[in-house]
């Protein structure tokens, strides 16, 4: 069979190499070349989706297994079920958009080429992580991903970039290293052998209660840092504020999904008993994240920080959905991973338009833009409304599924978390009010409205949100079965013990 997923991992890497090594004469064309590679990747992703058999969405499809390091027990094993597919699709959609949004961020062609090479390299690792079927491979790509992101923050960010990149790296690395401990110990507990790291072989192990709990924690801490959950979320606002909006958009919309993706497809599947054991505490932290993120978002003046806090809140909802273990809530969370990716990326891009035009991310520097830039205002409003889960836009469905599914299981948690919906209305509408209504500041007289490129960046994302808002079945079709399988694993163990 054609190794389509391997190709999808390798293609952006080749793109990164090409863009990085472009001769000086061609460097001006770096953006077009990078866009070409990411567009090709999108075509491959859509092709993958078209050939994906939705009737068998729970099964791993496009599977390929090649020997890699038999001495360690790891193989180059890729394959996606419906959940992996949705996230591969998400990253393939957002990377070209991010490249477009960063079109004018650099003046020097060399720097621009370097940035685009890093974006493409990070895409390769993202796709790889979502498609990995081998725990070691997952870990390697999970950690390797840090390197391009680290340079994207540290080399191309704002004033605080050095501090931010260091904070990001240390947080992620400590989480990753603890996970490494778990990865090694998991192999030791498994059947071993030359392919002993395959996820299939590590599923359903008969672990002692304590081992399972320790392993669960080793994995979960890494994912919680990535996701980012209270109290290990503090790196995100720092990074969001200091990095480029296009970097942050990719980071929050796609990369951080590795955290929730890992919880869903590794923690729950590999350690079902420990997941149930830890669920009450995790749900408490998830609810704290939801409310804490929302409250802090209201108080922010820097728009990038504001959006990052809203994401902490939204990630809390996903974690709540996952650890409620109900079919509807987990399905909602899986759907939310995709929808939140689109909606948050769009929000970051919209904020980026404002920052590019005004040179400041502070809400105080804006006001009354509605008349000056009506298209921008409308676009911003729709994207903002998606973030506060207005019915008709896709995040609404996923959020409501989480709440409805989780309510019978953890009613109190859902009641608290649902209050965040009210808070989210507050922070989004307040932001809109401060930027677009009221008296217009004189500095904004020359504000341009959305250019064609800006529209190409945001409107397709809005279209996706609208389509999925009315027809969520398109995605749910591939998510229901894999989620059902996971929920069954967690529930079955409950009966067994």
């Amino acid at each position: 069979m054609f190794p389509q997923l391997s190709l999808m991992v390798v293609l952006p890497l080749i793109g990164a190499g090409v863009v990085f090594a472009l001769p000086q004469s061609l460097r001006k064309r770096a953006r077009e070349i990078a866009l070409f590679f990411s567009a090709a990747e999108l075509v491959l992703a859509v092709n993958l989706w078209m050939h994906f058999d939705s009737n068998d969405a729970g099964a791993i499809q496009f599977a390929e297994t090649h020997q890699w390091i038999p001495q360690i027990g790891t193989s180059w094993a890729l394959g996606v079920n419906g959940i992996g597919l949705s996230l591969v699709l998400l990253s393939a959609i957002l990377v070209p958009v991010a490249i477009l949004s960063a079109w004018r961020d650099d003046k020097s062609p060399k720097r621009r080429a370097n940035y685009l090479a890093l974006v493409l390299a990070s895409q390769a690792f993202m796709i790889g992580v979502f498609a990995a079927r081998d725990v070691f491979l997952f870990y390697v790509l999970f950690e390797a991903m840090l390197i391009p992101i680290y340079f994207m923050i540290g080399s191309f960010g704002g004033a605080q970039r050095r501090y931010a990149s260091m904070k990001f790296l240390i947080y992620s690395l400590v989480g990753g290293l603890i996970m490494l401990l778990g990865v090694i110990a998991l192999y030791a507990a498994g059947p071993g052998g030359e392919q002993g790291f395959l996820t299939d072989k590590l599923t359903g192990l008969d672990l002692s209660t304590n081992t399972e709990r320790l392993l669960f924690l080793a994995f979960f801490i890494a994912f919680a840092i990535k996701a980012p959950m209270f109290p290990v979320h503090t790196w995100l606002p720092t990074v969001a504020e200091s990095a480029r909006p296009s970097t942050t958009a990719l980071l929050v919309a796609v990369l951080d999904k590795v955290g929730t993706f890992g919880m869903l497809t590794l923690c729950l599947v590999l350690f079902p008993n420990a997941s149930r054991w830890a669920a009450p505490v995790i749900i408490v932290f998830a609810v704290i994240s939801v409310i804490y993120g929302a409250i802090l978002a209201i108080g922010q003046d820097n728009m990038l920080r504001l959006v990052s806090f809203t994401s902490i809140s939204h990630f809390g909802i996903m974690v709540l959905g996952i650890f409620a273990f109900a079919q509807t809530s987990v399905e909602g969370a899986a759907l939310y991973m995709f929808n939140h990716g689109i909606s948050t990326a769009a929000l970051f891009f919209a904020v980026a338009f404002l920052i590019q035009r005004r040179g400041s991310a502070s809400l105080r520097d804006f006001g009354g833009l509605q008349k000056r830039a009506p298209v921008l205002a409308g676009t911003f409003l729709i994207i903002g409304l998606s973030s506060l889960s207005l019915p008709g836009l896709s995040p609404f469905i996923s959020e409501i599924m989480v709440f409805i599914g989780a309510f019978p299981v953890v009613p109190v948690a859902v009641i608290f978390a649902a209050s965040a919906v009210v808070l989210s209305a507050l922070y989004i509408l307040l932001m809109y009010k401060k930027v677009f209504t009221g008296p217009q500041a004189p500095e904004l007289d020359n504000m341009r409205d959305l250019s064609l490129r800006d529209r190409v960046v945001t409107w397709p994302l809005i279209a996706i949100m609208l389509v999925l808002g009315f027809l969520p079945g398109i995605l749910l079709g591939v998510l229901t079965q894999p989620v059902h399988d996971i929920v069954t694993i967690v529930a079955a163990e409950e009966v067994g013990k």
Partner: protein
Amino acid sequence: MNWTQPEITWGPLVPILVVLLAAAAGILVEAFVRTPATRRVVQIGLALAALVVALGAAVVQWATQEGSGTVVLNLMLVVDRQSLAWQVMLAVFGILTVLLFAARTRAGEEDFTALGSTPPGSLDETRALRAGLQVTEVFPLALFAVGGMMLFTAVTDYVFLFVVLELFSLPLYILVALARRRRSLSHEAALKYFLLGAFSSAIYIFGAALIYGATGQTSFTAVQTAIENLAGHDPLIIAAAVLILVGLLFKLGAVPFHTWVPDVYQGAPTSVTAFMAAATKAAAVAALLRVVYSSLYPLEWELNWLFWTISIITMILATLIALVQTDMKRMLAYSSVAHAGFILVAFAGFSPAALSSLPFYMLAYGLATFGAFAVVTQVRERTADGVVGGEANRLGQWAGLGKRAPWLATAMTLFLLSFAGIPLTAGFVGKFVVFRAAIDEGAWPLVLVAVLASGAAAFFYVRIIVLMFFTDVPEDQADLIEIEYSPFTRAVVVFAAVFTVVLGVFPGPALAAAEDAGVLLSSLTATVGS
């Protein structure tokens, strides 16, 4: 007492003999080739040729060897796959060392002084150079050291081990003292290394004497048998074992026997530092493995705590001290001490997997070490009037290196990431196999400390990356740094960088070889005590 001539199988010793004979020939070259330029070329050629031949011979032996190896000398010397693996590695390290020794700056300056009493750049020095006092004996000295280290990995007798320990230590004492610049530091380093080295040798030989006193044997295998046959505990054996291990841990540079490391690494010529950090450490690990797994193995219960304790304090202390270093070479020195701690993790519970994981670890670590120090030699100070001076070792001077020399800075980044154990570099695979060896023995608390120390250590590696790439060159210092260019040094950097990536992405063949090497051959062919 009857004396029978020992039977020696010379064949398997070819790699070692070639290196040692070439070293002896190098001394003759010193005496008979008078023209400095010719002498230099001859010495470099001789050294490289000897090491390449030794490498080839060792590889051929590896490929053609049947079974697990040959007992070269009953009870004293075996050449098994474990030893061959180290010999191949040391030969490669030797070649890299000779290349670094041979490197010169654009102005023709070497790492080594022509005459100890002449200040660098002075008229006296020029005169000394004209008089043909150029130091070319560094090449035979390096060969003696490499040959000694190769032999060190094959020795299976406590007294013989001591002799070989001195064989490779003595040339190092001289090499450390030969720095051309910062001569006082170099002298201090040499004296410190010599005194503490002599001290640790004394501790070691005391341990060997106690072993003989307790068991009546000096051969590893015979001692092991004697320990196994012992009824109950013998405090003498424990004391002897601890003293012997201390002697070896000194060479490894583990806390609390590490105090010489930062000073010596800083004071020695950088090429010598690279050699010591990579090769001496590899030889020490090889000997430690052989001593522990073929002789002291029955003492696992008694000695395990020693490895745990030293490993933990080494990792924690070295990492913490490295965090506050401001000198590049001292920072790398403390990083090498921290690595000694990671190395000792593999010994937890005397896991047999240490025998196959540590050769890979040392290869990965050694390559990154050579690469990093090679880069250090290329970043030089420059005075306002354009004279290129010594190495720019203050961390602040590395600011903006990514702009000045993007490829060099990228290579350095790669080595630092490998030190830090980031995936897709050789260092990660090395850490992985070592940690796995420990976890197999249930030593996960030790590994937990190790991963946390790795996380903290990443901080000071990454700090250098931040300096190189994310910090702009201060306005007033833009002209004060010169990037040197020596084809020899660049070759070392490229070689180390390529293999750091290759061993990180496709470590399969190397790991398979290391697994083959994971068995020690007993040196016993005849009955003991006859």
